[in-house]
């Protein structure tokens, strides 16, 4: 909402500087977006009187002027052809910056062809206040010497733009702003009640309200014999300043009243309308018409139209029709000042795809008791500047009821705000805002018609706080409740995320945060988008569904890095994936991605493989508190993984992580080159840890007996999982076998085709006595027997 300072002063008696006004509005909740002060850059320039102008003795085109300025009488050498005695000019003192010429005058008088010049007289172009450069500004009017140039040029009216919050439609009029600022102590409201203009004949137009829910009240009046010329200069200036193009008196008056009092109006050409108007539901094709924006609209029965018996004349509260609009030939007019239901206006405008200043006001809520005032304001302006004769005012319907009175407990001010405020001051604030107060133990507060946002006590408390000033509220430190033990508030999942992130970062991955959305065909590569997760209005077709995996953007990002020459970027992300649109359809994963790139090092180094990424996945799981020693590994990862180089870390049916190489086909579809290793850990799948009453650990029992290590080589089917063999060996003597390490894998000469030799180091830790050779032999026999059951045989 834009207005000019002089416009505000029409309603508000105030001597605030612009900076003070800024502050006052800001602290009353009218958030300033921009203040444009056209006079600010003209501060150095003022009016001066040219007493005398003589030809320069040494230059034909120069004149030596004697000028009366705010700094006294000055001798100024001037080259303008129009410099003459008796004119009022714009004076720039020595040292002044001339914006249009982009230079500053010397601080000391300069000799021009031998004669000192003590300043400059400027054209409007030179001070960027106009286009005129034929000569120096020759001001009309009787300006005392030293008048600021901005004032003399009519450029001293700052334009203020501020944000109107949706709860305060009354701020969409300058009067409403003034009323609020007066309450906030920024001045005195000087505009009284709207004056009535008596009618001299009965209104010849009748209005019928056929849809009172949409249009419950409609005031109208006819004015005959108007001359619809240009509106007065002051009105045009104000409208121009706030970005409204002046058209003619009738249009400008409706716009002016709309911005002055937040009161939209419409004016019909009497010659084009019938004697009876209806505010009714639209009738589809039959009501099709061209509106003032030159577009054709077809209002349906959920849209309100104003019509006569012949045709639809416009969309009520939104925009009038072209047919009945006013032109310069219009002499007799009918003024409409009605009230339209905000929800119906909003729905209509949305469905018809139309916007207007009237719609903006009605959808936020216009004062329902303002229709007659609106008519009177417009009448006074039209009669003053266009002449004519006004009819009586006709009012159809009744204004919607005011909001109910609010029962108000003044003690709530202290309780909610922490602010000590006397009851008298509370009443004073409410009354200054237009509320009616009846005091008692509980107060009864009546709500003014323009404050339909106020329905309960909290609404009043807000206004009291706002006007009393938020600066005056106490500042009270907010501490943890006294006497309560500090308990770390993080949840188990939060701690898991933290730890898993640190694990990944410690292992060389950089944490990234990537979009929660992805492209639907990319989602399809990773199992497809979940139910209900397609966006209706995506920001781009690249990001049109919620992602089913955190891998997509990480994969494309390592490729982007490679394209920039960074071969071995390693990224991880801890974030959401989306399986369906239910709250528990969102899960938290930690995913990591790196390309298979051999590090080049003088000591030699191989490329990472699936076991490196498996280790990363297991480290993240372990950090997150998963029981990694109990995990099973299976080779059945989903389709986006390399079928032979990927795996699943699971606890029975629960999938805790997938890891491995990404399927080359998936990479190709994502335009990713080479081989890429990745893991995705599903943190929600990790079983919750049991809370223990005590944090003490069981006593540490150390055996003083030496552990025995024995090596075995087994042959087994190369396609069988080695984990089964290790598990079987471990299970041979659960009490005594503490570790089984696979230290060699061999295929080739000496090993039958299709088999693999697996060399295991088994650690046997005696508990109570040293084992005899016989006992160790017995354990060995069990190990070999178990291995055989798992399909392996001791290598001969």
């Amino acid at each position, binding site marked *: 909402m834009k207005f000019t300072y002089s416009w505000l002063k029409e309603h508000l008696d105030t001597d605030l500087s612009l900076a003070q006004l800024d502050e006052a509005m800001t602290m009353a909740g009218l958030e300033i977006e921009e203040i444009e002060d056209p006079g600010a850059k003209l501060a150095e320039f003022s009016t001066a009187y040219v007493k005398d102008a003589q030809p320069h003795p040494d230059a034909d085109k120069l004149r030596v002027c004697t000028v009366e300025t705010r700094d006294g009488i000055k001798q100024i050498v001037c080259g303008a052809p129009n410099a003459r005695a008796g004119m009022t000019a714009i004076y720039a003192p020595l040292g002044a910056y001339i914006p249009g010429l982009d230079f500053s005058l010397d601080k000391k008088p300069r000799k021009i062809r031998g004669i000192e010049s003590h300043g400059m007289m400027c054209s409007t172009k030179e001070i960027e206040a106009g286009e005129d450069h034929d000569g120096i500004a020759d001001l009309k009017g009787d300006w005392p010497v030293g008048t600021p140039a901005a004032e003399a040029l009519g450029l001293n009216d700052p334009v203020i733009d501020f944000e109107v919050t949706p709860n305060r439609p009354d701020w969409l009029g300058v009067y409403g702003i003034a009323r609020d600022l007066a309450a906030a102590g920024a001045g005195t409201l000087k505009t009284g009640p709207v004056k009535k203009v008596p009618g001299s004949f009965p209104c010849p137009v009748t209005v019928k309200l056929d849809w009172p829910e949409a249009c419950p009240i409609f005031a109208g009046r006819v004015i005959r014999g108007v001359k619809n010329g240009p509106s007065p200069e002051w009105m045009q200036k104000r409208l121009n300043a706030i970005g409204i193009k002046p058209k003619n008196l009738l249009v400008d008056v409706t716009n002016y009243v709309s911005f002055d009092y937040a009161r939209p109006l419409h004016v019909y050409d009497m010659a084009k309308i019938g004697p009876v108007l209806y505010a009714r539901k639209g009738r589809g094709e039959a009501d099709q018409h061209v509106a003032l924006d030159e577009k054709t609209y077809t209002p349906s029965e959920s849209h309100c139209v104003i019509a006569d018996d012949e045709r639809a004349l416009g969309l009520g509260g939104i925009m009038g029709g072209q047919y009945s609009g006013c032109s310069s030939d219009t002499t007799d007019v009918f003024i409409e000042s009605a009230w339209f239901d905000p929800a119906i206006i909003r729905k209509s405008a949305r469905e018809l795809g139309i916007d207007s200043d009237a719609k903006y006001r009605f959808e936020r809520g216009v004062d329902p008791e303002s229709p007659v005032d609106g008519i009177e304001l417009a009448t006074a302006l039209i009669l003053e500047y266009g002449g004519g004769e006004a009819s009586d005012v006709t009012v159809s319907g009744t204004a919607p009821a005011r909001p109910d009175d609010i029962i108000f407990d003044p003690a709530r001010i202290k309780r909610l705000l*922490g602010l000590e405020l006397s009851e008298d001051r509370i009443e004073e604030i409410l009354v200054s805002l237009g509320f009616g107060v009846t005091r008692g133990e509980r107060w009864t507060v009546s709500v003014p018609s323009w404050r339909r946002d106020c329905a309960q006590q909290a609404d009043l408390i807000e206004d009291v706080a706002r006007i009393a000033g938020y600066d005056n509220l106490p500042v009270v430190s907010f501490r943890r409740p006294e006497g309560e033990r500090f308990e770390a508030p993080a949840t188990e999942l939060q701690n898991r995320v933290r730890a898993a992130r640190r694990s990944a970062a410690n292992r060389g*991955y950089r944490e990234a945060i990537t979009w929660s959305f992805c492209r639907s065909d990319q989602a399809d590569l990773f199992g497809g988008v979940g139910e209900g997760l397609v966006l209706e209005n995506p920001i781009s077709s690249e990001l049109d569904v919620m992602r089913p995996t955190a891998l997509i953007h990480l994969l494309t990002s390592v490729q982007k890095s490679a394209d920039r020459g960074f071969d071995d970027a390693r990224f991880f992300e801890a974030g959401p994936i989306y399986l369906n649109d239910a709250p528990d359809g969102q899960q938290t994963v930690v995913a990591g991605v790196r390309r298979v790139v051999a590090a080049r090092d003088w000591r030699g180094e191989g490329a990472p493989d699936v076991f490196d990424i498996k280790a990363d996945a297991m480290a993240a799981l372990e950090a997150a508190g998963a029981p990694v020693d109990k995990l099973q590994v299976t080779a059945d990862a989903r389709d986006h993984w390399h079928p032979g180089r990927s795996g699943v870390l699971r606890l029975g049916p629960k999938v805790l992580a997938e890891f491995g190489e990404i399927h080359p086909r998936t990479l190709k579809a994502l335009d990713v080159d080479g081989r890429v290793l990745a893991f995705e850990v599903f943190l929600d799948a990790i079983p919750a840890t049991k809370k223990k009453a005590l944090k003490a650990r069981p006593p540490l029992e150390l055996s003083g007996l030496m552990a025995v290590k024995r090596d075995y080589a087994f042959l087994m089917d190369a396609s069988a999982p080695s984990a089964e063999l290790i598990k079987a060996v471990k299970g041979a003597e659960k009490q005594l076998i503490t570790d089984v390490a696979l230290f060699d894998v061999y295929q080739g000469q000496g090993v039958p085709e299709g088999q693999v030799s697996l060399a295991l180091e088994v650690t046997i830790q005696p508990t109570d006595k040293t084992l005899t050779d016989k006992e160790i032999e017995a354990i060995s026999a069990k190990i070999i027997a178990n291995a055989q059951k798992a399909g392996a045989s001791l290598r001969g």
Partner: protein
Amino acid sequence: MTASSDLDALEARLSADIEAASDLAALDALRVGALGKKGEVSLKMRELGKMSPEERQVMGPALNGLKDRLNTLLETRKATLEDAAMNAALASESVDVTRPVKREAQGSLHPVAQVMEELAVIFADMGFAVAEGPDVEDDFHNFTALNFPPDHPARDTHDTFFMKAAEGETAKVLRTHTSPVQIRTMLNSKPPIRIIAPGRVYRCDWDQTHTPMFHQVEGLVIDKETHMGHLKGCLMDFVAAFFETDTVEARFRPHHFPFTEPSAEMDVRYERVGDAVKVGSGDKWMEILGCGMVHPNVIKSCGLDPEEYQGFAFGMGVDRLAMLKYGMPDLRPFFEPDARWLSHYGFSPLLQANLATGLS
């Protein structure tokens, strides 16, 4: 020639030989030749038995003395030779230690995650827990329960992403703020409530200063006595702790949010120091967050009695806090992984923001 002068000659010879021994083998040969079973000195000692007691009394100590002195000489020479041998071996083992070590890939944590951890620490100290909620929300939690009536202009201020809805169903949305977590928390727990809710939020907007996804942190307090003075105190203490400054000049401006009343925006003083921003003092105001007392309609929506319960809520942009504190000039790279950016603006995984050792 006396026996003792013989011994002197022998000692002189053997001593000279020991000194001259060039390696451990030669030295050992000398030891055997002198002190071994058949060594010169050993043989002489054997002869002691044949001597008269008087002779023995002279020659016994003399021979023992000689033996001891030769042993000492042998030990000393042995140590010298061993040292020399080790030095030679070490010299052959030497490497160029100025060669570089293996390059370990450096990992890092994202600055947004770091800032979220800092927020959690600061607010934990004030008794706040961290709550979370889903990104795909229903209309009730994102709007209606937060006192955005259906079809109200206030909804226009949120550039909402809608999900495709099945016929006849209300479309779900991507949460436009973290405030729905307020609703979920109030519906699922009993006051007193103190939570912060950090997380991803979504608005349909993408330009120089907006991304379609960004991060917010929401705060909520519900009890019977917390008033707006506490809100001011809480947030001013937060700003001081977060920006690690003693001087915080802040102002609270009236504003409008559907879910709080009274509502405010908090501005802090700031100044530019080069490209960076110093928060807390200076000549300009910068808006950093929105806040207010929880609207009675919101409290009611969550099944609590607004006559009995009250409290405050606040919300702020986490990415922006990160930019202000750590000096990133542009929001966009936050969500476009680039190892150089992540390295420059990221944090060590060994760092854990906490009260005892600091935030960062």
